[in-house]
């Protein structure tokens, strides 16, 4: 056994650039210890990301926590390997050991000897008697379980040089208000720290060194940013039904609204968070509130969007604003409910029967989640139509570093075209579906506005410009054409694509969206290092801005990178922009793990003609 002892050769090496993965049993309390580990690196000023890879289960199944550290700021997934595996779940050890990159480290509980079948010649083994230590130190089984997690964090701190004071300050923050717990946690950290110091040569080849790269950046998950965005965006009603991975959007809204939206005089709530009986009802409530002039939203995942289809068609045709945050997970059907994908693109773009189209937004990090949620309410009310934000499990449920959230004090909500009681009183002509401005967007009135003017019937049936029911084909067609025009007019209000040009060679371009961004940025560095100039365009919204077509036309071939099987965004581009499908080359990653830089770089380089590239991790093997 190549147990690492003092004086062992340091194989894998990396300063502020490596991957640590924790293999745990879910329900064992590991997540707060693992989070403390990731946050400590953030507090040392080094860019970091952390991903939970978890089962659809509450207790007893394997779960992983993957931490990417990269001082260049690349915090997407690097690939399918890690440099240090902290494997405390015997059940998953056989697969955990395979994931360690050659020269990497496998940390395990050596209270019992390691199964010989788990021995590889090309990696280092770090045995720490976690069970033995906890059995000696603690009597209560629950304490033994919880502190075991803290002890391995302490040990790793010594092995990779996490500043101990940073851990101490994190423990103090975590147990603010429960001061009794601070000292025992610090003690547990010390147990691990000292054991590692006494038994191994610290640091390992992979290690940390304080930097000042974080500045004012934040470390937060996308769902929290969405929930906060809804509070700042003026939502008063959140109607929702529990579903992974979107539930924490509603929870975040509720958490912040409870602190920020209490009427100071009465102590009552300037918001309502309603847990509906199902997703259909949640969307019905959103439509009812918006119809009545309050900003309302729902958060769900693919199965919920399927159920909301009928209501989305109503909102589209009756022109009622609605905001839907779809935190995508792996489908179809129940699919892999705790794994990530970008597979609701077509479902959302054309949701519901008949001819429908919906505005889509694609956030790529927590700041986008916040900004686009705020924008979604403005767009929905301006265009009077549903706005669907397509985030995903990777962004929604994992902590990402992000630019801080910003607020412009001069900004005020755009409530769209609303005819007031004064305007009605002055005799202004009111036709609910009368296109007076020529942009397809028409005036609405809130119920209860004026005693004898401005009332109308909202319906999912066809109607004329004054909202009177009609089955006249010409009037129906005129209305449908106006809806198409309105959809185009929405481009004035939706975020534009972000284009990165890397040179004069226009042979190849890349189109991507959402969470692919982080891994793509890293992959592009690698592609550039190989001498290729590949531009990329990150979509932020649908309908597509003209610059998307320009980008496709100005490149010979465009790779469309997405996290689904069927190339849904590519289909949408072909369908909406009428480009030659042969120009659009699909690069698809859909096994439920977040797309990674190695995969992207290999595939791009495969297309642009290079040989298969070396794994991106420069120091491995």
């Amino acid at each position: 056994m190549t147990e690492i002892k003092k004086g062992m050769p340091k194989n894998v090496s990396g300063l502020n650039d490596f991957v640590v993965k924790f293999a745990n049993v879910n329900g064992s309390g590991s997540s707060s210890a693992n989070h403390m580990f990731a946050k400590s690196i953030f507090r040392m000023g080094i860019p970091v990301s952390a991903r939970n890879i978890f089962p659809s289960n509450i207790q007893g199944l394997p779960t992983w926590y993957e931490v990417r550290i990269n001082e260049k700021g690349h915090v997407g997934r690097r690939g399918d390997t890690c440099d240090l595996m902290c494997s405390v779940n015997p059940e998953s050890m056989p697969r955990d050991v395979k994931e360690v990159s050659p020269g990497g480290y496998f940390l395990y509980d050596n209270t019992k000897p390691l199964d010989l079948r788990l021995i590889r010649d090309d990696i280092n083994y770090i045995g720490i008697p976690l069970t033995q230590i906890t059995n000696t130190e603690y009597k209560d089984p629950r304490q033994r379980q919880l502190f075991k997690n803290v002890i391995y964090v302490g040990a790793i701190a010594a092995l990779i040089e996490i500043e101990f004071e940073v851990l101490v300050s994190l423990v103090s923050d975590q147990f603010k208000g429960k001061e009794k717990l601070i000292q025992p946690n610090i003690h547990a950290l010390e147990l691990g720290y000292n054991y590692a110091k006494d038994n191994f040569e610290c640091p390992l080849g992979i290690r940390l060194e304080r930097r000042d790269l974080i500045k004012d950046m934040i470390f937060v998950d996308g769902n929290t940013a969405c929930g906060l965005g809804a509070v700042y965006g003026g939502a008063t009603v959140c109607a929702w039904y529990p579903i992974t991975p979107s539930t924490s959007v509603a929870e975040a809204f509720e958490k912040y609204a409870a602190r920020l939206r209490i009427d100071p005089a009465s102590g009552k709530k300037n918001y309502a968070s309603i847990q509906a009986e199902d997703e259909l009802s949640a969307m019905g409530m959103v439509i009812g509130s918006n119809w009545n002039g309050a900003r309302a939203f729902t958060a769900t995942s693919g199965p919920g969007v399927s159920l909301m289809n009928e209501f989305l068609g109503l909102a589209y045709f009756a022109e009622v604003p609605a905001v839907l945050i779809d935190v995508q997970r792996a489908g179809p059907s129940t699919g892999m409910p705790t794994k990530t994908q970008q597979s609701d693109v077509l479902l959302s773009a054309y949701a519901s029967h008949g001819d429908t189209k919906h505005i889509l937004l694609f956030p790529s990090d927590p700041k986008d989640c916040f900004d686009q949620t705020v924008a979604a309410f403005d767009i929905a009310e301006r265009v009077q139509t549903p706005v669907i934000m397509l985030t995903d499990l990777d962004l929604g449920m994992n902590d990402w570093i992000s630019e801080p959230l910003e607020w412009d004090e001069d900004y005020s909500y755009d409530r769209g075209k609303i005819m007031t009681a004064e305007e009605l009183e002055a005799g202004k002509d009111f036709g609910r579906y009368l296109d007076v401005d020529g942009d397809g967007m028409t005036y609405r009135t809130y119920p209860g506005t004026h005693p004898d003017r401005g009332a109308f019937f909202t319906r999912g049936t066809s109607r004329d410009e004054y909202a009177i029911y009609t089955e006249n084909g010409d009037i129906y067609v005129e209305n449908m054409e106006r809806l198409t025009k309105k959809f185009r007019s929405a481009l004035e209000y939706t975020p534009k694509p972000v284009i990165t040009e890397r040179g004069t060679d226009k042979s190849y371009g890349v189109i991507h969206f959402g969470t692919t961004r982080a891994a793509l940025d890293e992959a592009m560095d690698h592609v550039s290092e190989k001498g290729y100039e590949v531009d990329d365009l990150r979509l932020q919204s649908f309908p597509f801005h003209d610059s998307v077509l320009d980008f496709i036309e100005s490149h010979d071939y465009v790779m469309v990178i997405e996290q689904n099987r069927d190339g849904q965004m590519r289909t949408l581009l072909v369908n909406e922009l009428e480009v030659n499908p042969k120009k659009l080359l699909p690069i698809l990653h859909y096994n439920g793990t977040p797309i990674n830089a190695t995969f992207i770089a290999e595939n791009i380089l495969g297309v642009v003609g290079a040989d298969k590239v070396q794994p991106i991790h420069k120091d491995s093997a």
Partner: protein
Amino acid sequence: MSYIKPKFRHPDLPTNRIGLTEASYEGAISTLCAGCGHDSISAGIVRACWELDLPPHRVAKLSGIGCSSKSPTYFLNQAHGFNTVHGRMPSVATGANVANRDLTYFGVSGDGDSASIGMGQFAHVVRRNLNMVYVVENNGCYGLTKGQGSATQDQGSASRKGAPNPYSPIDLVGVALQLGATFVARSFSGDKEQLVPLIKAAIKHKGFALIDVVSPCVTFNNHPGSTKSYDYTRDHVETGVVMDFVPYQEEIKAKYEPGTTEEVILHDGSAIHLHKAESSYDPSDRLSAINKVQEYKDDGKILTGLIYLDPVAAEFHEMMDTSEMPFNQMGDTELCPGKECLNRINSSFQ
């Protein structure tokens, strides 16, 4: 629509306290079949709103899909209406009500809309005790698709072609009582005397008020052998508790034997006077109401009138502890916490 209602009205028509004639509460001309029970209910709603001096534009009327759901077009022209999707009006009404608690909400549904496709939403809006009037225009069949049986059709009741219904019926009154509804009534579209006070009390009730109105379908379910026909209903309805609605500070008109009348005060000071018939029961006792509905059913009779009332239960806004100010009147001041606060939140993520 083929007809336009004449706008000319007799100048001496009586007006209510806000100066409106009953005609000001009417809607478009009905396109339902001549003699449809639903039109009588629309007329009852018009009368009730007029007598209560409700400003018509301060009412919002919502419905699902079906003949019943067309009827909001036929009353209160000055009120905003929302014809939603089949069986899902309760959720839209919930959202609307949460957005503006100051309007009066009328939901009009049917037996298919509420007892079949919308059973789930019906059950849950009852649980929320949403402050609204929920009228079920119950004819035991799907009129708009030409007379298929619905879930409220009685077992054994014959279809137009003579086939008896094999399924056990859903009684929305029984279901609502079981789910904790706070105002439960049943009526008959042919009995305006009973219906109008019930609607008035339902409007004034602070919470969810169900009125299940047997409303015969003259075209598809009015034949011998049907238990939802005019003839059958007339022969089998029996009022359990006679109810008068007395607006706040108005004198009592009806006179009953002393000791047989009970007064229930509603939240705004208006009163309901309950005159109990001999065979009666206590409409403030849920269990007794549930039993009575079932006893009548077992005897082949239809219990009508105010069946159950709880005037003090918390309605949805009280459960949610929301501000008095309607959400749809809130602006940036009430809603946006501002930049400084966001900076503090940023710090909590560092």
